[in-house]
């Protein structure tokens, strides 16, 4: 199959709080099997060879599980393919797309949210997510104090529901895609994981209250139930988890947490 040529519009910004702008780059000879990050690798090799500053973007595992990568591609977090991280997005997905002067055009922007300041170009600071987890996204159990694993029986549907919620990779596409820049799906997924499990039940109320409080303190927007988050989530985490978070929160409020 023939190769493709792309006209890329990429957000360039030298550092936090500095002005930025979209800049245009051209890359030829792109094959179907390349990922969009490998396309950027190629572009960067060209830029470095020309002595120019390469485009800063972050990625790590490049197999869709670490949650490091994340670009808004043509206005959609992680690009056009559903349940797929940026690093797993192959260029074949862009065949037949919009062209400008005979080149396929792609616009690449960073996650945009106040709590995620831009570090450089396409790299943002997501430590707000760590602080939300620190507020209660765990079971309080010290190493060595656990009982025999099989003494705790958990029905398969509950374990499966917990796993569905726990599969969150913390990429923050949910925030990037949310019209309100809300972190509800991320926070809810962790709260819901523990709601489905007996472990950590004594701290359920505290967890819901503290995690929500931290989420708000970080400056994320409120949820308007648009559901864009679920649509861009690489793991397809359902917004039903957000309903679970609200139930937990309501119970905690009524119970006095």
């Amino acid at each position, binding site marked *: 199959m023939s190769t493709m040529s792309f006209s890329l*519009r990429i*957000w360039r910004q030298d550092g936090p709080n500095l002005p930025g702008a*979209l800049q245009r780059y051209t890359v030829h000879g792109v094959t179907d099997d390349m990922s969009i990050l490998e396309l950027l690798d190629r572009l960067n090799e060209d830029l470095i060879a020309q002595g120019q500053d390469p485009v800063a973007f972050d990625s790590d595992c490049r197999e869709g599980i670490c949650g490091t990568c994340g670009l*808004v591609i*043509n*206005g*959609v*977090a992680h690009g*056009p393919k*559903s349940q797929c991280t940026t690093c797993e997005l192959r260029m074949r997905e862009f065949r037949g797309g919009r062209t400008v002067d005979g080149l396929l055009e792609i*616009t690449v*922007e960073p996650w*945009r*949210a*106040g*709590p995620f300041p831009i570090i450089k170009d396409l790299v943002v600071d997501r430590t707000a997510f760590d602080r939300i987890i620190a507020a209660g996204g765990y079971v309080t159990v010290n190493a060595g104090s656990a009982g025999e694993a099989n003494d705790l029986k958990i029905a398969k549907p509950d374990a499966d529901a917990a796993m569905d919620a726990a599969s969150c990779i913390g990429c923050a596409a949910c925030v990037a*895609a949310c*019209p*309100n*820049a*809300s972190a*509800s799906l991320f926070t809810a997924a962790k709260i819901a994981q523990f709601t489905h499990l007996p472990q950590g039940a004594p701290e359920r109320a*505290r967890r819901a*209250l*503290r995690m*929500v*409080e931290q*989420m*708000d303190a970080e*400056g*994320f*927007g*409120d*949820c*308007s*139930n*648009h*559901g*864009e988050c*679920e*649509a*861009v989530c690489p793991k*397809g985490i*359902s*917004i*039903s988890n*957000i*309903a*679970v*978070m*609200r*139930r*937990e*929160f*309501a119970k905690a*409020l009524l119970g006095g*947490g």
Partner: protein
Amino acid sequence: MSSLGTRVWSSVGKKLISGLTGLGLVIFVCIHLTGNLLLLVGADAFNRYSYFLEHLGHGAFIYFAEAGLVSFFALHIVSGISVWRRKAHARQVGYAVRGDAGGPSRKSLSSRSMLYSGILLAVYVPLHVAHFKYGGPPIIQLDGHEARDLYSLVVTEFKNPLIVALYSGAMLFLGLHLRHGIWSMLQSLGLLNRRLLPPAVTLAVIVSGLLAVGFLLLPLYVYLNPQVMPLTGGLG
């Protein structure tokens, strides 16, 4: 940890408030429509219904209900505005290109316009109340009591094409608001799960459609039907 007030007014607390008040308002709208539809039965039924409401509990009920409705409206509006304000703060730099994620997203014209449809309704409702509560309809005799002839007031108004157009517009916005609002309030109250979510959205589309059609039925019926005329031939 935070105070109770902060918790209640947290992002999730506000959703609970918004959902709860929304639920109350939707129930109110359903009862309101049912009452309004008595107009189709006839002048007597409609006026008796309004007389009944105005005098229930020696006239106390109506004030109680109004107070409740006003506070529900107020909370619903204030929480809605708060969502909008935080949203503006949470993303100060927007995207150059906006695409739709498609798939399981529930984003719609309705969900994107909640603030605007809400504002229009917030403007409409006081006008509507002023119009019909304090519109000063003629007094008629009903089983030996003096009663307000709301039937004639409504019919007279709905013979005016401008009023019909404005009212119909407002009802379309009500439908638009409820298209997202009805399932969203269930989600906000944490009543949905993965299985119930899709039918809840369908339910919202149907109920919001029926409510809008129901409310639109009245002005069109009055305006287009020359048989329907005020009892007392005009208002002061």
